[in-house]
């Protein structure tokens, strides 16, 4: 059993954190701070084939499969999208591909601002999730054929 918290546990921590913030401005501020604290992505990895399609801003994901776990680095030129990337990073990075594939992203709605953000096509949350889940499926496929 890994020592890392489960997806559900991390989600609950984030929900609790965001619930402490009074208004939208504070929630966004917190999100942006999370983005700024995200480990830096190697600029050499910011190639067009790692670009997630369907966002108004640029988002890059470099996703790898290690021992059945999904490991990624990511970045965006938008501070808010980078904040969203940081949330995804906190919840999903290093988790078993199987769990990532099962992850139910409806938790975003409970963060407060996500209710608004997640319905927006332009920020590409759906595209990012699609991208990550595809990688998780590929990772699982690889494992079973090995």
């Amino acid at each position, binding site marked *: 059993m890994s020592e890392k918290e489960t997806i559900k546990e991390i989600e609950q921590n984030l929900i609790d954190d965001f619930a402490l913030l009074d*208004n*939208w*401005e504070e929630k*966004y*501020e917190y999100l*942006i701070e999370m983005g700024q604290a995200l480990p830096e992505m190697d600029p050499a990895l910011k190639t067009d084939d790692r670009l997630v399609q369907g966002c*108004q*801003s*640029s988002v890059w994901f470099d996703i790898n499969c290690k021992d059945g776990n999904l490991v990624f680095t990511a970045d965006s*030129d*938008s*501070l*808010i*999208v980078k904040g969203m990337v940081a949330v995804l990073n906190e919840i999903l990075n290093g988790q078993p591909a199987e769990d990532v594939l099962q992850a139910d992203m409806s938790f975003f709605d409970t963060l407060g*601002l996500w209710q*608004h*953000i997640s319905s927006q096509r*332009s*920020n590409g949350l759906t595209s990012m999730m699609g991208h990550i889940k595809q990688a998780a499926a590929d990772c699982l496929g690889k494992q079973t054929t090995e």
Partner: protein
Amino acid sequence: MSKDILSARTDFPILNQTVNDLPLVYLDNAATTQKPQSVIDVINHYYTTFNANIHRGNHTLAVQATQAYENVRKKVATYLNAESADQIIFTRGTTESINLVAYSFGQAFVKEGDEVIASQLEHHSNYVPWELMCQRQGAHFRVIPFDQNGELDLQAFHAMLNEKTRLVAVNHVSNSLGTVNPIEEIVQIAHEANVPVLVDGAQAVQHMSHDVKVLDADFYAFSGHKMYAPMGVGVLYGKRKWLEEMPPFQSGGEMIDEVTPTKVTFNALPYKFEAGTPNVADVIGLGAAIDYINQFDFAQLQAYEDALLDYGLNLLRTIPGLKVYGNPKHRSAILPFNVEGIQHYDLGILLDAKGIAVRTGQHCTQPIMDALHIAGTVRASLALYNTHEDLDALAHGIERVIRMIKR
């Protein structure tokens, strides 16, 4: 006595609300304007009292609905100062109006090796239909560039015209930069070369003089929803000589005269171009929107909006790191900008958190963004109900976002 512009705001019920616990500041009018109560009421009235399919019905409701629909055609003709009402074709919007011409005019008049000219300042809806039409007909698509002020290069345009040019398509006002193009001059230059001109009036018809006789445009297209009317209704005005020679766009009911297995003849103008049951309710809504605008003195309205725009531009330019795009001699209702170090998307989202609605991105004008070497802009755009306070709120909002991000 014309209506006081400062009283307009209370006519729009949607504006009286809070967004994210703050009073709504609506500055996305180039995307769509809000609707006055009178427009909302007229649609409700139509569906509660005389909804019927028009033209061929003999019963009372059908006659009433037909009269109301055709009265709006006359109203639009008067609004545009068109020669006659049968040159007014109802469509779904500017995009459909332009596609109609691209398809029908293209089929009738554009052959292989011909040329069609649009401009680099166009919305995709007055660019892509011509590009695709040229591909279909084997014609060449040519593009008038714009200069560092965001104005069309008329010398380049002049040089582009030749005996192969079949049509010129330009907008009256750029949706991205707000440039007011010199339509009369462009039309004159094109007409000297015997080339007709289509004008996309989507960003002009609600803000400035729109007299098609003065402009002398061969086609003028616009949408209802950007001029306080409902979504889903638009207009194409065309000169009779073109409309009569152009084949129908879509086919079906309404647009035919005689139908046999071997022969179809078409109805007269404007019905030739209005296949199927039209959007009666929203056309009637468009009529109410024109009535609403007509309560104001149009010159006064334009002066008010222009003064508001100048106030906003000057205010934005005082914000350190903020860059306003374009510097045309005449600009209308559009404030396009970016703030150094802040992504346009982030600024839009954070302004929304303060109840301020603006648009961010490319605004369906990729050729403009490519020419300016930017990924997008923030665009605030005005309507007659906006006030100095709205622009103060915008400037204040931007300053707070800058403080928050650059801390």
